[in-house]
Structure formats: structure tokens, C-alpha cells
């Protein structure tokens, strides 16, 4: 469970993330470099996709933020990526679970399935029923070529704190703009979040504020924040070279979401067996071994499903 980290202090944050960027190849500094990169990545996403001004946003600012995201993505690509998981997020149109269904019309948007896979496990030592993600990574069935990430190992849990905090504080802002989550999410939120600061990312993200588009393709979603001012037609996105996976899952730390399937309402209870196959299909989507392309219906072998269940249950 993620710690009940307090809001990061200005100075601490500065020490941890500011200053010269160290080369990604430095051993011990690599962690802080990737942390820094992840924070900036998240902030950039927030900036692009989280506000709907009444006037046209500045093209210069948008271009600079997009360049930042592209650079980070390039770097991640170059570092070679085997990081699994989060594949299913490429199906924005498919509800991942019934819990989020009511949010779909408002948020069937790129971020919704992407950031909210309810079954992602935290890298933190979780409740006993789950295998830490670090183990899952090594399993071949978890790989997906489409997903980028920032390196073969996850940063140690305590180091995640600043990242979560900066993201959480950004999420808190969204929270202020959002209506209260539904009861289902609230249950998930309460049980999953140990953080006193607020609800985990998913609840906030689900109920994103006004201005979010209806369900569409992932690519066209990417251009949503830039309506009109780029003269882009609906079919092309400003960042179509970045797929949904690339952008959102390159570095996403599941630890942020603190979602504990053992106690969530999505049905991934501590005992997997009673859950229906359909539900499991949806909730275990990330662990598909097939490379998933955006908007393709999710398919998975039931045998693989069994295998996954075994691993998750720890048997």
C-alpha cells in the first residue's frame, strides 16, 4: 500500500527532481532521472488534456508541451522497452468493467481505460493476494510490444512518493472540478486508497470535468484539447504518431492508483474463482499476451486466463 505521503514540500521536491539532469546511464542516478522524467511527463499530459479554456490555448505553449512529450517518448523508445502491462488501455471504447460503465459517456476518452485499469497491481507490497508487479513483468505473458516504459526495473517504492504526490496534487485539482464519485468508485476508492490526501487517480479521472469528448478513437482523442486552433480535421490527431499506449503507459506507475483488486468492487476479490469469466476477461485485460492495437476488441485465451489466475492467486 502506498504510504500516506503528505504533500511534498517545495524543497524536497526541488532536491529530488530539479537540477541538472543526470545521464540516464548513471547507476544510482538513473532512478532520480526516470522519476524526474515521469513527473514531467505527467505534468505535460495534465497541461495538455486537463483544461478547457474559454479562449484558444496558446499554440506556442501547446507545441512546446507536445515536443516535451515526444522527446520523452523518443527516449523511452531508445532505451528499449519490455515493460508489460497496461495494454488493454488501448481499447477506449470497451468498458473495462461495469463499475466504470456509467462514466463512459463522459469519459470514454483516452485517459479513462488507460489510467484506470482496475486490476493493475501496485508495485508496493500489496495485500497478500496479489503478486507484485515486478514479478509479473518477468512473465512473458505480460509483455506487449506496444508498450513503452522507462527501464527494466521499477523504482523502489519509497522513491515513488514524490511522483505520486505530484501527480496526486494535480489530480486533486481535477478532483475539485469533478463531481463526487459514484458509490462504486467510492468503495473502490476508500478501500484502495490509504492516502489521506484524497481519492486515487481513477475516481478522479473517471469524472473528469466538462469538456471531455464523447467516445471516439484513441487518436482523435489525442487532439481533443486542441479544438480548432490547429485546423485539424476530426480524423487526425496532433500526436498520431504516439499511440494511446505509448503516451499513457510508457511510464505510468500503477502504484499511483493504489488499486487493490482484492478489495475492489470490480469483483476481483481475494478469491478469483467465483468471478465470472466475462468479468475476468475484462479485468485481466492488461495481462493479455497478444499485442493489442487500439480499438480492437479484446481477445484472450481462456487457458491463458487460467494461467494468470493462478499467478495472481499465488497458488
Amino acid at each position, binding site marked *: 500500500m502506498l504510504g500516506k505521503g503528505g504533500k511534498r514540500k*517545495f*524543497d524536497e*521536491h*526541488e532536491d529530488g*527532481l*530539479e*537540477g*541538472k*539532469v543526470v545521464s540516464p546511464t548513471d547507476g544510482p542516478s538513473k532512478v532520480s532521472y526516470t522519476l*524526474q*522524467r515521469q*513527473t*514531467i511527463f505527467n*505534468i505535460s499530459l495534465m*497541461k495538455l488534456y486537463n483544461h478547457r479554456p*474559454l*479562449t*484558444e490555448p*496558446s*499554440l*506556442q*505553449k501547446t*507545441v*512546446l508541451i*507536445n*515536443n*516535451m512529450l*515526444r*522527446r*520523452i517518448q523518443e527516449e523511452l523508445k531508445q532505451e528499449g522497452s519490455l515493460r508489460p502491462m497496461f495494454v488493454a488501455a488501448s481499447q477506449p471504447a470497451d468498458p473495462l468493467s461495469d463499475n466504470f460503465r456509467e462514466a463512459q459517456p463522459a469519459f470514454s476518452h483516452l485517459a479513462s481505460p488507460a489510467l484506470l485499469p482496475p486490476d493493475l497491481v501496485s508495485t508496493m507490497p500489496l495485500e497478500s493476494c496479489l503478486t507484485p508487479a515486478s514479478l509479473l513483468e518477468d512473465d512473458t505473458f505480460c509483455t506487449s510490444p506496444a508498450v513503452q516504459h522507462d527501464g527494466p526495473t521499477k523504482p523502489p517504492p519509497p522513491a515513488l512518493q514524490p511522483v505520486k504526490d*505530484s501527480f496526486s496534487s494535480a489530480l486533486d485539482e481535477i478532483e475539485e472540478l469533478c463531481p463526487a464519485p459514484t458509490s462504486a468508485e467510492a468503495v473502490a476508492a476508500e478501500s484502495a486508497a490509504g492516502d489521506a490526501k484524497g481519492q486515487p487517480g481513477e475516481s478522479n479521472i473517471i469524472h473528469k470535468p466538462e469538456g471531455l469528448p464523447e467516445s471516439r478513437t484513441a487518436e482523435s482523442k489525442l487532439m481533443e484539447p486542441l*479544438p*480548432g*486552433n*490547429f*485546423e*485539424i480535421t476530426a480524423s*487526425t*490527431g*496532433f*500526436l*498520431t*504518431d504516439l499511440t494511446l499506449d505509448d503516451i499513457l503507459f510508457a511510464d505510468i506507475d500503477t502504484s499511483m492508483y493504489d488499486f487493490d483488486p482484492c478489495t475492489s468492487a470490480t469483483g476481483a476479490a481475494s478469491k478469483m474463482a467465483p468471478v465470472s469469466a466475462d468479468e475476468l476477461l475484462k479485468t485481466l485485460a492488461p495481462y493479455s499476451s497478444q499485442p493489442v492495437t487500439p480499438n480492437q476488441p479484446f481477445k484472450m485465451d481462456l487457458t491463458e486466463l487460467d494461467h494468470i489466475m493462478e499467478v495472481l492467486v499465488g497458488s
Partner: protein
Amino acid sequence: AADIISTVEFNHSGELLATGDKGGRVVIFQQEQENKTQSHSRGEYNVYSTFQSHEPEFDYLKSLEIEEKINKIRWLPQKNAAQFLLSTNDKTIKLWKISERDKRPEGYNLKEEDGRYRDPTTVTTLRVPVFRPMDLMVEASPRRIFANAHTYHINSISINSDYETYLSADDLRINLWHLEITDRNIVDIKPANMEELTEVITAAEFHPNSCSTFVYSSSKGTIRLCDMRASALCDRHSKLFEEPEDPSNRSFFSEIISSISDVKFSHSGRYMMTRDYLSVKIWDLNMENRPVETYQVHEYLRSKLCSLYENDCIFDKFECCWNGSDRQVEFLSLCTSNLSNIVMTGSYNNFFRMFDRNTKRDITLEASRENNKPRTVLKPRKVCASGKRKKDEISVDSLDFNKKILHTAWHPKENIIAVATTNNLYIFQDKMN
């Protein structure tokens, strides 16, 4: 607030100082004529005229508001009794005529003084109407409206040295206008596929002497010099000014802080000055591969870039300006012979900075009522970057990033400067002996 100042500009004589604000208003100040007997102070600036230049509009096609905020004001050189200036918001440029009326005709034969018509049968004698003095009235009227020529947001206007044409620049295009007639496009960097867009135009200016030459800066820290004689569409530059990146200072934010927010030619036209987030650079037009001088405005912010990115301050667009052209500048008690030798630019916490190119000395001053009594000499400020803070120093962490000075202007002939904080305009002059 509607009265956030968004641009400041002296006219060519320095007698008038125009400010534009976020509410679309233009306020013009006029310098009092110097009182010869009071040699210890120059004329003060008082409000001369106020008018609403731009109104908010709504773009129905995109469902977005078009801000009425005045981005730039540029004065035309005075040709007759009236004054002319160009003011622009994001989309529309207007030519305003500001004229004085201090006389009015009286003694009409067919009209009473209040305008009512007289019964012609009561007219028994004829007289010639005469002009009689009246209270000064300053009127502003729009003479031209240059609209629908910019898809993106206008960031610069610059009047050509031929005084007949001017350019306007938005993020992707530069247009050339004839003050009388129409416009044509002279620079277009819009890519065929907008997904490939990685660079935008940030500022543009005509050369002060060569009427076919202009420069434009970009968000990647480059400046391109173009010659309109080369081709109708200046999509190939004549010169490209760019400094190679310093590898020891490389960070995630290198590109953003290299984005140039302002470019200004020196009076001679031999040099140009650019402002990026942390520094001011002087370029020799004959040397493209690096600036000849670099001045650090607030280097202590380099370690704060992540936070400044988060709170958007890193996108603040600071302007810069040269000292006035006609006088030798005796700044910091030093005699100088170079005409363009002092550069001024703003920073945070209501600080602004001046750099003397000859002596390499610099000074930080503050524009604030609390800390400066009128008619007292401004006290230099110092920011303590790290370590022990000395008395009177301000630590970086206590800087107020909401108090930013983006716009400054220098009187063209005298050592008078105008400094705009968020809501206030400060006018400083050098100490007279």
C-alpha cells in the same frame, strides 16, 4: 482584472507613452512640458487619452472567445498634428488616429450655439464664424481595421522604416501590410501536416534602416533574417542565428527556456537583442553561430524549472529594450559613447534588470510602492540563490512569481523608463544633477 497592463510603448518623441491592457483599453500618457525654472525634474506623465481599442469577440466557428487584450502597440512617426498608432489583439490590428481639439467654431448664421436651427427669417445680418478656444479634447478614432488575416494569435507588429508598410506576425505566419491598402503574406511556416508542427514564430521586427529586411524568432531559440527582395514569400531565410546548446546545462526544459520571447534591433541596426526565459543575448548581424554577449537575468531559476513548468511561469514572455537612442547614457555614473549600450528587461517579484554592455555591470531594481518612496533613488536589490542570505538579500524561495514585469520601455531621447507591473505603470527617471 481588466486593467492588467499588456504592453507599453513610447512614441518617437517620447512625449507620449501608450499602454494597452487586458480589457482592450489604450491609455496614453503625455509628458508635461518641462518647466525651465524647475530644472530638477523633467515633465511628469499624466493621462492624455483613454479609449477602448478592442472589444471581446466570439469565434462562432470554434466556439471560443477572442480576447480583447492588447498584445502590442506601435506608434507611427508623426507627420501632422495628429498622432497615429497601431494596436493589436490576437486577431485584429487597428490604426488609431489621436487628435486634439482645442478650438471650436462659433458664430454660425443658421444655427444657435446649442445646435438648434434658427428661423431663417430672423436672420438680419451675416457674420463669419470664428474659432474660439475650448477645453482641450483628445479624440481617438479608428481609421483602419486590418482583420481576418491571421488564423493564429498575433504576437508582433513592426512598422517599416519606409513608414508605409508594417508587418504582423502570428505563430505561423507573417503578413506585410500597406497602411493604406491591403496585405500579403510574406512568411508561412505552417506545415502541410499540422502533426509535424514543432516550432512557432514568437516575435518579428523590421530592420530600423533597411526597409526590405526583417527578422523573426522562434520557439526553438532561432532567429531568421529575411530579405523581401529575395522572393515574394520569405520562406528561405538569408541568415539563421542560433547558439549551439551548452551540454552541461542540458535538461528536459532546454527547449522551452530557449524559446525567444522578444527580439529588438539596436538603433544602428548592427545588433539585435533577444530575450529567452533566463537570459538576454546580443547578436551581431554578421555572426550567426553565436551571440556576442549573453546576460543572465535570473540564473537562480535554473534549478526551479520543474516547478516553473508546473505553474506555467516558464511560459511567461518577458520583453527587453535598449536605452534611448539620442543621448549618451550616463548610467551608473559612467560615461559611455556607445549609443545602444544598456539593455533592460523584467523579472519576477517586480524586479527589473539593467545591463551595461560597456562596463558589464548590472543592476536589479524593484518597481513597488511599498519599497520605494517617490522621488527617492531606487535601491539595488539582490537575490540570494543559495547558502547564507545576507541582510537585504531576498532568497529565491520568497520571490513572488505572480509579480512579474513583462513589459518595459525606454524613452527614445531621455533617461526615462516605463515599467509595467501587473496592474501599475511606474515611470522612473535618472537622477539629475
